[in-house]
Protein backbone atom coordinates (compact mmCIF):
# COMPACT_ATOMS: atom_id res chain seq x y z
CA UNK A 1 0.00 0.00 0.00
CA UNK A 2 1.09 3.53 -0.82
CA UNK A 3 0.28 6.28 1.69
CA UNK A 4 -0.05 9.89 0.52
CA UNK A 5 -0.94 13.01 2.48
CA UNK A 6 -1.34 15.86 -0.02
CA UNK A 7 -1.78 19.52 0.97
CA UNK A 8 -4.58 20.34 -1.47
CA UNK A 9 -7.82 18.67 -2.48
CA UNK A 10 -6.87 18.95 -6.16
CA UNK A 11 -3.77 16.85 -5.53
CA UNK A 12 -5.81 14.35 -3.54
CA UNK A 13 -8.38 14.02 -6.34
CA UNK A 14 -5.66 13.61 -8.94
CA UNK A 15 -3.91 10.88 -6.94
CA UNK A 16 -7.16 8.96 -6.48
CA UNK A 17 -8.25 9.43 -10.09
CA UNK A 18 -4.92 8.28 -11.54
CA UNK A 19 -4.40 5.34 -9.19
CA UNK A 20 -4.64 1.76 -10.38
CA UNK A 21 -6.35 -0.69 -8.08
CA UNK A 22 -8.20 -0.13 -4.85
CA UNK A 23 -8.09 3.28 -3.21
CA UNK A 24 -9.29 4.58 0.13
CA UNK A 25 -9.65 8.06 1.54
CA UNK A 26 -8.34 8.35 5.10
CA UNK A 27 -10.11 10.86 7.34
CA UNK A 28 -10.47 9.70 10.97
CA UNK A 29 -9.60 6.13 10.04
CA UNK A 30 -11.80 4.56 12.70
CA UNK A 31 -13.43 2.32 10.11
CA UNK A 32 -10.86 2.15 7.34
CA UNK A 33 -7.86 1.28 9.55
CA UNK A 34 -9.83 -1.49 11.25
CA UNK A 35 -10.74 -2.84 7.79
CA UNK A 36 -7.12 -2.51 6.65
CA UNK A 37 -5.67 -4.27 9.70
CA UNK A 38 -8.18 -7.09 9.60
CA UNK A 39 -7.54 -7.70 5.93
CA UNK A 40 -11.13 -6.82 4.94
CA UNK A 41 -9.73 -4.34 2.40
CA UNK A 42 -6.29 -4.27 0.83
CA UNK A 43 -5.96 -0.83 -0.73
CA UNK A 44 -3.17 -0.02 -3.16
CA UNK A 45 -3.37 3.65 -2.26
CA UNK A 46 -4.56 5.45 0.84
CA UNK A 47 -4.94 9.23 0.61
CA UNK A 48 -4.92 11.00 3.96
CA UNK A 49 -6.96 14.22 3.62
CA UNK A 50 -6.00 15.66 7.00
CA UNK A 51 -3.10 17.76 5.67
CA UNK A 52 -5.65 19.77 3.68
CA UNK A 53 -6.34 22.72 5.95
CA UNK A 54 -9.88 23.48 4.79
CA UNK A 55 -10.97 19.96 5.75
CA UNK A 56 -10.64 20.89 9.44
CA UNK A 57 -12.87 23.97 9.35
CA UNK A 58 -16.38 24.55 10.65
CA UNK A 59 -17.60 27.73 8.95
CA UNK A 60 -20.84 29.67 9.13
CA UNK A 61 -22.59 29.75 5.77
CA UNK A 62 -25.98 31.19 4.89
CA UNK A 63 -27.34 30.79 8.41
CA UNK A 64 -26.08 27.21 8.64
CA UNK A 65 -22.67 25.59 9.06
CA UNK A 66 -20.28 23.88 6.68
CA UNK A 67 -18.39 21.06 8.40
CA UNK A 68 -15.11 19.93 6.83
CA UNK A 69 -14.61 16.24 6.13
CA UNK A 70 -11.76 15.92 8.64
CA UNK A 71 -13.60 17.55 11.56
CA UNK A 72 -13.64 15.03 14.41
CA UNK A 73 -16.65 14.23 16.55
CA UNK A 74 -14.86 15.82 19.50
CA UNK A 75 -14.29 19.04 17.55
CA UNK A 76 -17.92 19.14 16.37
CA UNK A 77 -19.18 18.55 19.91
CA UNK A 78 -17.21 21.55 21.16
CA UNK A 79 -18.79 23.91 18.59
CA UNK A 80 -21.49 25.93 20.35
CA UNK A 81 -23.01 27.20 17.11
CA UNK A 82 -23.61 23.79 15.55
CA UNK A 83 -24.86 22.38 18.86
CA UNK A 84 -27.41 25.20 19.14
CA UNK A 85 -28.64 24.93 15.52
CA UNK A 86 -28.57 21.14 14.97
CA UNK A 87 -28.42 19.45 18.40
CA UNK A 88 -29.78 16.21 16.97
CA UNK A 89 -26.92 15.97 14.48
CA UNK A 90 -24.32 16.63 17.17
CA UNK A 91 -25.84 14.09 19.56
CA UNK A 92 -25.90 11.50 16.77
CA UNK A 93 -22.23 12.07 15.92
CA UNK A 94 -21.29 11.96 19.61
CA UNK A 95 -22.89 8.51 19.97
CA UNK A 96 -20.26 7.05 17.66
CA UNK A 97 -17.72 5.07 19.70
CA UNK A 98 -15.68 6.06 22.72
CA UNK A 99 -13.90 9.27 23.71
CA UNK A 100 -10.88 7.90 21.85
CA UNK A 101 -12.90 7.23 18.70
CA UNK A 102 -14.47 10.70 18.97
CA UNK A 103 -10.96 12.16 18.82
CA UNK A 104 -10.65 10.87 15.25
CA UNK A 105 -14.00 9.79 13.77
CA UNK A 106 -15.66 12.18 11.32
CA UNK A 107 -19.21 12.79 10.12
CA UNK A 108 -18.14 12.54 6.47
CA UNK A 109 -16.39 9.25 7.19
CA UNK A 110 -19.46 7.90 8.92
CA UNK A 111 -21.46 8.81 5.80
CA UNK A 112 -18.96 7.37 3.28
CA UNK A 113 -18.38 4.15 5.25
CA UNK A 114 -21.99 3.51 4.22
CA UNK A 115 -23.12 1.38 7.13
CA UNK A 116 -26.92 1.14 7.34
CA UNK A 117 -26.47 1.56 11.11
CA UNK A 118 -24.33 4.73 10.89
CA UNK A 119 -25.54 6.94 13.72
CA UNK A 120 -25.00 10.33 12.11
CA UNK A 121 -26.78 9.55 8.85
CA UNK A 122 -30.47 9.57 9.95
CA UNK A 123 -29.78 12.89 11.69
CA UNK A 124 -28.09 14.28 8.56
CA UNK A 125 -30.90 13.06 6.31
CA UNK A 126 -33.61 14.78 8.35
CA UNK A 127 -31.43 17.92 8.49
CA UNK A 128 -31.43 17.97 4.65
CA UNK A 129 -27.64 18.13 4.86
CA UNK A 130 -25.76 18.43 1.57
CA UNK A 131 -22.40 16.81 0.83
CA UNK A 132 -20.01 18.90 -1.22
CA UNK A 133 -18.07 16.50 -3.42
CA UNK A 134 -14.92 17.29 -5.39
CA UNK A 135 -13.75 15.02 -8.17
CA UNK A 136 -11.97 14.91 -11.53
CA UNK A 137 -15.02 16.47 -13.20
CA UNK A 138 -15.25 19.32 -10.69
CA UNK A 139 -17.54 19.96 -7.78
CA UNK A 140 -21.09 18.75 -7.17
CA UNK A 141 -23.45 19.17 -4.22
CA UNK A 142 -25.47 16.10 -3.34
CA UNK A 143 -28.13 15.60 -0.62
CA UNK A 144 -26.78 13.08 1.89
CA UNK A 145 -29.63 10.65 1.29
CA UNK A 146 -28.32 10.17 -2.26
CA UNK A 147 -24.81 9.14 -1.15
CA UNK A 148 -25.27 5.56 0.05
CA UNK A 149 -26.84 2.77 -1.98
CA UNK A 150 -26.22 -0.22 0.29
CA UNK A 151 -23.84 -1.56 2.92
CA UNK A 152 -20.37 -0.21 2.03
CA UNK A 153 -21.62 1.19 -1.29
CA UNK A 154 -21.83 4.86 -2.31
CA UNK A 155 -22.58 6.91 -5.42
CA UNK A 156 -19.12 8.50 -5.29
CA UNK A 157 -17.22 8.03 -8.55
CA UNK A 158 -13.52 7.19 -8.85
CA UNK A 159 -11.45 10.13 -7.63
CA UNK A 160 -14.34 11.83 -5.82
CA UNK A 161 -13.95 13.02 -2.23
CA UNK A 162 -16.56 14.46 0.13
CA UNK A 163 -14.92 17.76 1.06
CA UNK A 164 -17.54 19.03 3.49
CA UNK A 165 -21.12 18.64 4.65
CA UNK A 166 -23.44 21.65 4.80
CA UNK A 167 -25.90 21.75 7.67
CA UNK A 168 -28.37 24.30 6.33
CA UNK A 169 -30.12 27.20 8.01
CA UNK A 170 -33.49 26.38 9.52
CA UNK A 171 -36.66 28.33 10.30
CA UNK A 172 -37.45 29.60 13.80
CA UNK A 173 -39.26 27.15 16.11
CA UNK A 174 -37.38 24.15 14.75
CA UNK A 175 -35.87 21.23 16.60
CA UNK A 176 -34.22 17.91 15.85
CA UNK A 177 -33.28 14.78 17.78
CA UNK A 178 -31.67 11.39 17.26
CA UNK A 179 -32.17 8.30 19.38
CA UNK A 180 -30.78 4.83 18.96
CA UNK A 181 -31.30 1.52 20.70
CA UNK A 182 -28.32 -0.52 21.86
CA UNK A 183 -28.35 -3.20 24.57
CA UNK A 184 -25.90 -1.21 26.73
CA UNK A 185 -25.38 2.47 27.53
CA UNK A 186 -22.28 3.22 25.41
CA UNK A 187 -19.96 1.83 22.76
CA UNK A 188 -22.18 -0.24 20.51
CA UNK A 189 -23.65 -0.26 17.02
CA UNK A 190 -27.26 0.84 16.56
CA UNK A 191 -29.88 -1.91 16.53
CA UNK A 192 -32.29 0.81 15.41
CA UNK A 193 -31.76 4.57 15.04
CA UNK A 194 -34.37 7.30 14.55
CA UNK A 195 -33.80 10.92 13.54
CA UNK A 196 -36.51 13.58 13.51
CA UNK A 197 -36.44 17.23 12.51
CA UNK A 198 -39.54 19.40 12.75
CA UNK A 199 -40.72 23.00 12.63
CA UNK A 200 -43.68 24.32 14.60
CA UNK A 201 -46.18 27.03 13.65
CA UNK A 202 -46.82 29.88 16.09
CA UNK A 203 -49.92 28.04 17.34
CA UNK A 204 -47.78 24.99 18.19
CA UNK A 205 -48.96 22.78 15.35
CA UNK A 206 -46.33 20.99 13.29
CA UNK A 207 -45.59 22.87 10.07
CA UNK A 208 -42.95 20.57 8.62
CA UNK A 209 -41.26 17.32 9.63
CA UNK A 210 -38.75 14.78 8.40
CA UNK A 211 -38.30 11.29 9.84
CA UNK A 212 -35.40 8.94 9.04
CA UNK A 213 -34.62 5.46 10.36
CA UNK A 214 -31.28 3.66 10.57
CA UNK A 215 -30.42 -0.06 10.77
CA UNK A 216 -33.83 -1.19 9.51
CA UNK A 217 -32.99 -1.50 5.79
CA UNK A 218 -29.96 -1.66 3.50
CA UNK A 219 -29.78 2.15 3.60
CA UNK A 220 -31.08 4.83 5.96
CA UNK A 221 -34.77 5.33 5.17
CA UNK A 222 -36.49 8.70 4.84
CA UNK A 223 -40.07 7.89 5.87
CA UNK A 224 -42.50 10.43 4.43
CA UNK A 225 -45.72 8.81 5.75
CA UNK A 226 -44.23 9.09 9.25
CA UNK A 227 -43.56 12.79 8.73
CA UNK A 228 -47.08 13.24 7.32
CA UNK A 229 -48.48 11.79 10.55
CA UNK A 230 -46.97 14.72 12.45
CA UNK A 231 -47.64 17.60 10.06
CA UNK A 232 -50.71 19.62 11.10
CA UNK A 233 -50.86 17.97 14.52
CA UNK A 234 -49.78 19.11 17.97
CA UNK A 235 -47.99 15.80 18.42
CA UNK A 236 -50.93 14.53 20.46
CA UNK A 237 -51.23 10.82 21.29
CA UNK A 238 -53.10 10.03 18.08
CA UNK A 239 -50.45 11.71 15.92
CA UNK A 240 -47.62 9.99 17.78
CA UNK A 241 -49.36 6.63 17.43
CA UNK A 242 -49.72 7.24 13.69
CA UNK A 243 -46.04 8.27 13.50
CA UNK A 244 -44.94 5.08 15.26
CA UNK A 245 -47.15 2.92 13.06
CA UNK A 246 -45.84 4.55 9.87
CA UNK A 247 -42.24 4.21 11.04
CA UNK A 248 -42.67 0.53 11.84
CA UNK A 249 -44.48 -0.06 8.54
CA UNK A 250 -41.49 1.31 6.60
CA UNK A 251 -38.98 -1.09 8.17
CA UNK A 252 -37.51 -3.95 6.19
CA UNK A 253 -34.70 -5.05 8.52
CA UNK A 254 -32.63 -8.19 8.71
CA UNK A 255 -32.44 -10.68 11.57
CA UNK A 256 -28.97 -10.70 13.06
CA UNK A 257 -27.17 -11.01 16.37
CA UNK A 258 -28.08 -7.42 17.28
CA UNK A 259 -31.83 -7.79 16.88
CA UNK A 260 -34.66 -9.65 15.20
CA UNK A 261 -36.88 -8.32 12.43
CA UNK A 262 -39.82 -8.17 14.83
CA UNK A 263 -37.83 -6.34 17.52
CA UNK A 264 -36.32 -3.78 15.14
CA UNK A 265 -39.69 -3.07 13.55
CA UNK A 266 -41.34 -2.44 16.91
CA UNK A 267 -38.46 -0.37 18.33
CA UNK A 268 -38.31 1.87 15.24
CA UNK A 269 -41.80 3.13 16.09
CA UNK A 270 -40.97 3.59 19.77
CA UNK A 271 -37.79 5.56 19.04
CA UNK A 272 -39.46 7.72 16.36
CA UNK A 273 -42.14 8.63 18.87
CA UNK A 274 -39.67 9.52 21.62
CA UNK A 275 -37.39 11.46 19.24
CA UNK A 276 -40.39 13.47 17.98
CA UNK A 277 -41.23 14.59 21.52
CA UNK A 278 -37.61 15.66 22.14
CA UNK A 279 -37.52 17.54 18.82
CA UNK A 280 -40.80 19.26 19.72
CA UNK A 281 -39.42 20.33 23.11
CA UNK A 282 -36.31 21.75 21.41
CA UNK A 283 -38.43 23.54 18.81
CA UNK A 284 -40.36 25.28 21.55
CA UNK A 285 -37.00 26.53 22.91
Amino acid at each position, binding site marked *: *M*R*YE*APDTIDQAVQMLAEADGLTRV*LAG*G*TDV*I*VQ*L*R*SGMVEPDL*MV*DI*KRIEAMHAITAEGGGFRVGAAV*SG*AQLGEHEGVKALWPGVVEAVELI*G*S*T*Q*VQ*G*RATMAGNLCNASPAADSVPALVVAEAVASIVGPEGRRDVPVDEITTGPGKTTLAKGEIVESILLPARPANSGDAYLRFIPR*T*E*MDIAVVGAGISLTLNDDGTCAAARVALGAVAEVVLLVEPAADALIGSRLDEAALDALAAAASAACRPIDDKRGTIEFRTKVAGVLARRAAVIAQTRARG
Partner: protein
Amino acid sequence: MSQIHVSTTINGDPVEYLCEPDETLLDVLRDRLGLTGSKEGCGSGDCGACSVTVDGRLVCSCLMLGAEADGKQVGTIEGLAEGENLHPLQRKFLEHAALQCGVCTPGFLVAAKSLLERNSDPTETEVRYWLAGNLCRCTGYDKIVRAVLDTAHDMKGA
Protein backbone atom coordinates in the same frame (compact mmCIF):
# COMPACT_ATOMS: atom_id res chain seq x y z
CA MET B 1 7.08 -1.20 -0.30
CA SER B 2 9.08 1.89 0.55
CA GLN B 3 9.22 3.10 4.11
CA ILE B 4 8.00 6.53 5.15
CA HIS B 5 10.18 8.98 7.04
CA VAL B 6 8.33 10.60 9.93
CA SER B 7 9.42 13.51 12.14
CA THR B 8 7.29 13.88 15.22
CA THR B 9 7.37 14.86 18.88
CA ILE B 10 6.77 12.26 21.58
CA ASN B 11 6.40 13.35 25.20
CA GLY B 12 8.09 16.62 24.28
CA ASP B 13 11.12 15.05 22.60
CA PRO B 14 11.75 15.25 18.85
CA VAL B 15 11.70 11.75 17.35
CA GLU B 16 12.33 10.49 13.82
CA TYR B 17 11.53 7.06 12.48
CA LEU B 18 10.91 5.06 9.35
CA CYS B 19 7.70 3.03 9.13
CA GLU B 20 5.69 1.01 6.67
CA PRO B 21 2.69 2.79 5.11
CA ASP B 22 0.21 0.42 6.76
CA GLU B 23 1.93 0.29 10.15
CA THR B 24 -0.06 1.65 13.08
CA LEU B 25 1.27 4.27 15.46
CA LEU B 26 0.93 1.65 18.22
CA ASP B 27 3.26 -0.74 16.39
CA VAL B 28 5.74 2.09 15.79
CA LEU B 29 5.70 3.06 19.48
CA ARG B 30 6.13 -0.49 20.72
CA ASP B 31 8.27 -2.19 18.10
CA ARG B 32 10.42 0.61 16.70
CA LEU B 33 10.74 3.06 19.57
CA GLY B 34 10.66 0.69 22.54
CA LEU B 35 7.79 2.58 24.16
CA THR B 36 5.96 -0.54 25.30
CA GLY B 37 3.72 1.14 27.88
CA SER B 38 0.91 1.44 25.32
CA LYS B 39 -0.70 -1.99 24.94
CA GLU B 40 -2.53 -3.74 22.17
CA GLY B 41 -5.73 -5.25 23.49
CA CYS B 42 -8.13 -5.50 20.57
CA GLY B 43 -6.50 -3.68 17.66
CA SER B 44 -9.90 -2.31 16.62
CA GLY B 45 -10.47 0.72 18.85
CA ASP B 46 -12.74 -1.00 21.35
CA CYS B 47 -10.54 -1.46 24.44
CA GLY B 48 -8.51 1.74 24.84
CA ALA B 49 -5.35 -0.03 26.08
CA CYS B 50 -3.37 1.78 23.36
CA SER B 51 -4.65 5.27 24.31
CA VAL B 52 -2.33 8.19 23.55
CA THR B 53 -2.90 11.87 22.89
CA VAL B 54 -2.21 13.44 19.51
CA ASP B 55 -2.15 17.24 19.50
CA GLY B 56 -3.98 17.06 22.81
CA ARG B 57 -6.79 14.75 21.63
CA LEU B 58 -7.25 11.33 23.16
CA VAL B 59 -7.08 8.64 20.45
CA CYS B 60 -6.43 4.93 20.03
CA SER B 61 -2.91 4.53 18.62
CA CYS B 62 -4.04 1.25 17.01
CA LEU B 63 -6.50 3.25 14.86
CA MET B 64 -3.89 5.62 13.51
CA LEU B 65 -1.06 5.06 11.06
CA GLY B 66 2.48 5.81 12.14
CA ALA B 67 2.79 7.97 9.03
CA GLU B 68 -0.01 10.23 10.27
CA ALA B 69 2.05 11.31 13.29
CA ASP B 70 4.35 13.46 11.13
CA GLY B 71 4.51 16.94 12.63
CA LYS B 72 2.24 16.02 15.54
CA GLN B 73 2.64 16.14 19.30
CA VAL B 74 2.18 12.64 20.66
CA GLY B 75 1.74 11.95 24.38
CA THR B 76 2.13 8.42 25.77
CA ILE B 77 2.04 6.81 29.21
CA GLU B 78 5.83 7.14 29.36
CA GLY B 79 5.34 10.91 29.59
CA LEU B 80 3.18 10.87 32.73
CA ALA B 81 5.74 10.49 35.48
CA GLU B 82 8.52 13.06 35.79
CA GLY B 83 11.59 10.96 36.49
CA GLU B 84 10.93 9.14 39.76
CA ASN B 85 7.94 11.35 40.56
CA LEU B 86 4.72 9.62 39.66
CA HIS B 87 1.81 11.62 38.27
CA PRO B 88 -0.94 12.17 40.89
CA LEU B 89 -3.17 9.76 38.95
CA GLN B 90 -0.51 7.06 39.12
CA ARG B 91 -0.17 7.54 42.90
CA LYS B 92 -3.95 7.35 43.36
CA PHE B 93 -4.21 4.21 41.23
CA LEU B 94 -1.68 2.57 43.55
CA GLU B 95 -3.37 3.92 46.69
CA HIS B 96 -6.80 2.67 45.60
CA ALA B 97 -5.42 -0.60 44.19
CA ALA B 98 -7.11 0.39 40.93
CA LEU B 99 -5.35 -2.29 38.94
CA GLN B 100 -4.81 -6.01 39.01
CA CYS B 101 -3.12 -7.43 35.93
CA GLY B 102 -2.23 -3.91 34.76
CA VAL B 103 -2.60 -4.31 31.01
CA CYS B 104 -5.37 -1.72 30.75
CA THR B 105 -3.77 0.67 33.27
CA PRO B 106 -1.61 2.79 30.91
CA GLY B 107 -4.64 3.45 28.72
CA PHE B 108 -6.79 4.36 31.72
CA LEU B 109 -4.13 6.74 33.02
CA VAL B 110 -3.66 8.50 29.68
CA ALA B 111 -7.43 8.78 29.24
CA ALA B 112 -8.02 9.99 32.81
CA LYS B 113 -5.29 12.62 32.48
CA SER B 114 -6.95 13.85 29.31
CA LEU B 115 -10.29 14.09 31.16
CA LEU B 116 -8.85 16.04 34.10
CA GLU B 117 -7.13 18.49 31.75
CA ARG B 118 -10.53 19.34 30.29
CA ASN B 119 -12.68 18.94 33.37
CA SER B 120 -10.92 19.31 36.69
CA ASP B 121 -14.03 18.47 38.70
CA PRO B 122 -15.88 15.66 36.91
CA THR B 123 -18.91 13.87 38.33
CA GLU B 124 -18.83 10.10 38.67
CA THR B 125 -21.09 9.85 35.62
CA GLU B 126 -18.73 12.02 33.58
CA VAL B 127 -15.78 9.85 34.60
CA ARG B 128 -17.62 6.67 33.66
CA TYR B 129 -18.70 7.98 30.26
CA TRP B 130 -15.26 9.42 29.46
CA LEU B 131 -13.64 6.09 30.32
CA ALA B 132 -16.28 3.94 28.56
CA GLY B 133 -13.77 3.22 25.80
CA ASN B 134 -11.26 1.75 28.26
CA LEU B 135 -11.98 -1.85 29.12
CA CYS B 136 -10.73 -3.56 32.27
CA ARG B 137 -11.50 -7.24 32.80
CA CYS B 138 -10.14 -7.43 36.37
CA THR B 139 -11.28 -4.61 38.62
CA GLY B 140 -14.95 -4.01 37.91
CA TYR B 141 -14.07 -0.31 37.37
CA ASP B 142 -15.15 1.03 40.78
CA LYS B 143 -11.62 1.37 42.11
CA ILE B 144 -10.51 3.08 38.90
CA VAL B 145 -13.37 5.56 39.03
CA ARG B 146 -12.70 6.26 42.71
CA ALA B 147 -9.00 6.81 42.02
CA VAL B 148 -9.80 9.35 39.28
CA LEU B 149 -12.35 11.19 41.44
CA ASP B 150 -9.94 11.25 44.38
CA THR B 151 -7.17 12.64 42.15
CA ALA B 152 -9.50 15.42 40.98
CA HIS B 153 -10.47 16.13 44.59
CA ASP B 154 -6.83 16.40 45.72
CA MET B 155 -5.73 18.47 42.72
CA LYS B 156 -8.57 20.90 43.38
CA GLY B 157 -7.47 21.26 47.01
CA ALA B 158 -3.86 21.82 46.02
